[in-house]
């Protein structure tokens, strides 16, 4: 009969041919990968032919009983698939390539250890134990990781696709299903094996199918939009409320130490209180290139935003290019009676032409000058 080696190389050849055709049909790319696959076909066919010709392995040692123990092995097939994926990966993408490498390595090592263990002794249970001893430490974690990865990945894909409230419901349903399945299995101890297996397979297939479908259909719209627009990164420091930036603004502070000044908006006026100086100030000295924390307290009725104007708007040469960029940083809209912190780090000194100041968004009057020496 045909030897294992022949089967392997024959399989490689056939699958490579298929891969070659498919890659040409699907990708119309033939560069390096195509050459590699062609080469593989040639080598595979040559070796298969050689093995068939020499009939290697068809005769067995008559005086050993090991031949009886040799089991059917799927590893040659699996490794062949690995080779094909590897070659396909050269044409398509590196993910497929690495997938192929992993499959190939796994299959080869399984094959090798199996072959070795079958020759270990005359006792087949002993051989099985020897195989287990070396391979179980690899098989267990790999299987666990693959299973876990597939479930988690599929599930998270589904969650990313459905909308937020459906997601929560879906989540609790998934949990409940698992629990219910557990309970059913527990109270029906003599359920037939195939039924149990069917439930498990259905569940697994369901989640994987859902995952694949979700991955194909893409994430829910708000997430796509959020990723594209960066809702929280570009704050417009205007007086009006911004949809995202001012959402659920904060009123309390975790930062209490190392505050340079407290700026209070009170009775239509902005004043600064500075550590060490008793009187309220209308100007504030801030060291160059030092992170400086300022607390803004809104002691009026409306919602207001403190903005630090850090120059830039009057830059003449830039304005000529049509770029009237303002260098500003600001707090969220602060509710009445609430506080927020603002951290400034100013690198350039202020000057007569380039005045820095703090102001309340929407009013140009209420200012505190920032002196940067």
């Amino acid at each position, binding site marked *: 009969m045909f030897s294992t080696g022949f089967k392997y190389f024959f399989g490689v050849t056939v699958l490579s041919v298929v891969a070659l055709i498919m890659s040409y049909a699907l990708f119309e790319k033939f560069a390096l990968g195509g050459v590699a696959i062609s080469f593989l076909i040639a080598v595979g066919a040559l070796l298969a032919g050689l093995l068939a010709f020499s009939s290697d392995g068809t005769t067995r040692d008559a005086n050993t009983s090991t031949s009886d123990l040799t089991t059917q092995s799927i590893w040659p097939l699996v490794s062949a698939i690995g080779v094909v994926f590897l070659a396909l990966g050269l044409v398509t993408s590196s993910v497929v390539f690495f997938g192929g490498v992993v499959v190939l390595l796994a299959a080869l090592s399984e094959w090798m250890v199996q072959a070795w263990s079958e020759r270990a*002794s005359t*006792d087949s249970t*002993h051989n099985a134990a*020897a195989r*287990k*001893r070396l391979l*179980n*430490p690899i098989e267990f*974690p790999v299987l666990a990781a693959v299973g876990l990865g597939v479930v988690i990945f599929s599930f998270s894909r589904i969650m990313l696709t459905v909308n937020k409230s459906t997601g929560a419901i879906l989540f609790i349903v998934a949990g409940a299903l698992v629990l219910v399945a557990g309970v059913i299995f527990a109270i029906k101890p003599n359920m037939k094996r195939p039924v149990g297996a069917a439930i498990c397979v259905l569940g697994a297939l369901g989640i994987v199918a859902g995952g694949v479908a979700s991955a194909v259909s893409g994430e829910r719209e708000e997430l796509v939009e959020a990723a594209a627009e960066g809702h929280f990164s570009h704050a417009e420091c205007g007086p009006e409320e911004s949809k995202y930036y001012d959402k659920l603004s904060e009123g309390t502070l975790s930062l209490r130490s190392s505050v340079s000044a407290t700026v209070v908006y009170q009775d239509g006026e902005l004043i600064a209180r500075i550590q060490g100086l008793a009187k309220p100030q209308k100007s504030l000295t801030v060291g160059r290139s030092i*992170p400086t924390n300022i607390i803004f307290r809104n002691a009026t009725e409306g919602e207001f935003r403190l903005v630090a104007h850090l120059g830039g708007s009057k830059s003449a040469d830039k304005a000529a290019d049509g770029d009237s960029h303002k260098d500003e940083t600001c707090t969220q809209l602060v509710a009445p009676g609430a506080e927020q912190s603002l951290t400034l780090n100013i690198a350039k000194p202020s000057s007569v032409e380039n005045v820095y100041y703090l102001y309340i968004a929407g009013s140009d009057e209420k200012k505190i000058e920032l002196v940067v020496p």
Partner: protein
Amino acid sequence: MAIIERPAPTVPAIVTPTTTYGLLKRPVSATGWRSWVFTVDHKKLGIMYGATAMLFFIVGGVEALLIRLQLAAPNGKVLNADLYNQMFTMHATTMVFLFVMPMAAGFANYFVPLQIGARDVAFPRLNAFGFWAFLFGGIFLNLAWFLGGAADGGWFMYAPNSGPVFSPSNGVDFWALGLQITGIASLTGAINLIITVLNMRAPGMSLMKMPIFTWMITVVQFLLLFAIPVITVALFLLSFQRNFGAQFFDVAAGADPLLWQHLFWIFGHPEVYVLILPSFGIVSEVLPVFSRKPLFGYPFVVFSGAAIGFVGWGVWAHHMFASGLGPVSVAVFSLTTMAIAVPTGVKIINWTLTMWSGKLWFTTAMKFSIGLIVLFTVGGLSGVTHAVAPSDTQQTDTYYIVAHFHYVLFGGAVLGIFSGFYYWWPKVFGKMLNEKLGSWNFWLMVIGLNLTFGPMHILGLQGQPRRMYQWTEARAGEGFFNLAFWNLIASIGSFVLAVGILTFLINVLITSRNPQKAPLDPWDARSLEWMTTNPPKEHNFDVVPTVHHLDDFFHQKYEEDAATHTMKQVRTAEEIMAEQERNADKHIHMPSPSYWPIVLAFGLPVITFGVIYSHLISVVGGVIVLFAAYGWALESSTAPDSDFETNTPGTGLDKVASNHD
């Protein structure tokens, strides 16, 4: 061999090679390098811990000598600024994490099971893993020297100076990740020893009959158990910042650099007691033996040790008196720091009173112990002076602090360790260390350490800060005894100290060539570890002893004379041993050697290496770790019969499949 059969089987062994796993069988050899690499025997691991720690001690010592060479004269040119900063960082790191801690772990590993009458630790393979993780972690830490420079931020590695911009070489990465690995080693060691002490004491040995060394080790392991995760968190934050772009110590993003200091010292202060308490334990064993009296106030010593363990958690901020805490925190931590001086003082008093009215025998071990009492007191008292926070703001980060903690750590921890060497050497190696050389060793070390660290008090009080790669004559003051003079003296002293340690190594060398065996009970000792052969058999005791007293071995040898209350010998150690041999247990199953601990430990530096260079390497490391972990979990702690080349049928081998690790 994992199974010890007594008496020796008379049936000839039948070789059945067909049932072996060939290459895949478990390691079972009792000789050769395999017996060391794959061992799970707590005694072998103890020796390996000790030898490795000694090696790192020499490395750290050479670093110290280079530092002192650089500072011997103003504007030293031996090292440049960069190299000097690496040198003092690695000196401290090596001495703390790679010498004192593992050396104590070595003593603990070897003697705790012996002292409580156990045959091994609770988790023998975990024990082996701990050693290999420590060794690989230590090597990983020092690899940085050859890969672009070692860590240069000081052993305290304050943020943000340890950040990617301020410390651009890979040194800090190697440091942080290497300490993670040795941290894993310490953690597993701590769990192992705690369970061993709690669960595996010989019958009759209640907690208050435990030898004091075991007690102190137990306190230390609890400290480690709770302190290691804190530094682990800190190191993770640091590594995440350096390698994955986290912002934990990025001040521009609003981070607070004091977070690192708090995390570091919440670990760091208990760590100080981790370093010193094992030596307290050793001294508390040595003093009673050579005073021929039990430890004075045993319960007080135990409770003061435990008290140090507890209060040690409430003093960390005394390392930060100058770092801008509010006056209330400063006051509170000042108070707790003074409070912890009390239980420490109790120990000094008890040791002195142990010697009081004893019959003192000044062996080298005893000399080192007495040296510890005096020199540790100096360090302890200088410690009290900076518990006074306002005074500390003058002294912190000066050489006064260097003097203080070297008196504590060298005068305390290291002298204790050397005391342990001389006391237990015959037990471990079956040979006596030379007492005459020992005396030289002691005096050279004591003189050397006083010459080195004594002048540092003056240097510090006169305003020389630490961690300066050069000092300038402009700030050295005038007069003959100016800072230049004392710097020179300290440098000379450090070489005297080095000669002292060299004497010890020579002593070991000479001893190892001496064919003469040590007597069974050379010191007329008191605790259980002496109730076995020198060195002990693999299974420690032929009969697991039943304990009736504290210092049970002594009470088996001596009985009190009713009239004079003096002690009279009734039995010799040899007689006790002979009796044990007669009643020896049969069928003692010892855990078998295993490949997995070393494989698992090897995976760790591979992972960390990958964190620095390429994440693909980390994946390989992760696979190694997972593979080894599963191999470990699937293997029973005692090898089944099929793993042995020889099989002795009919002797009733119990197939013990006990897996406890």
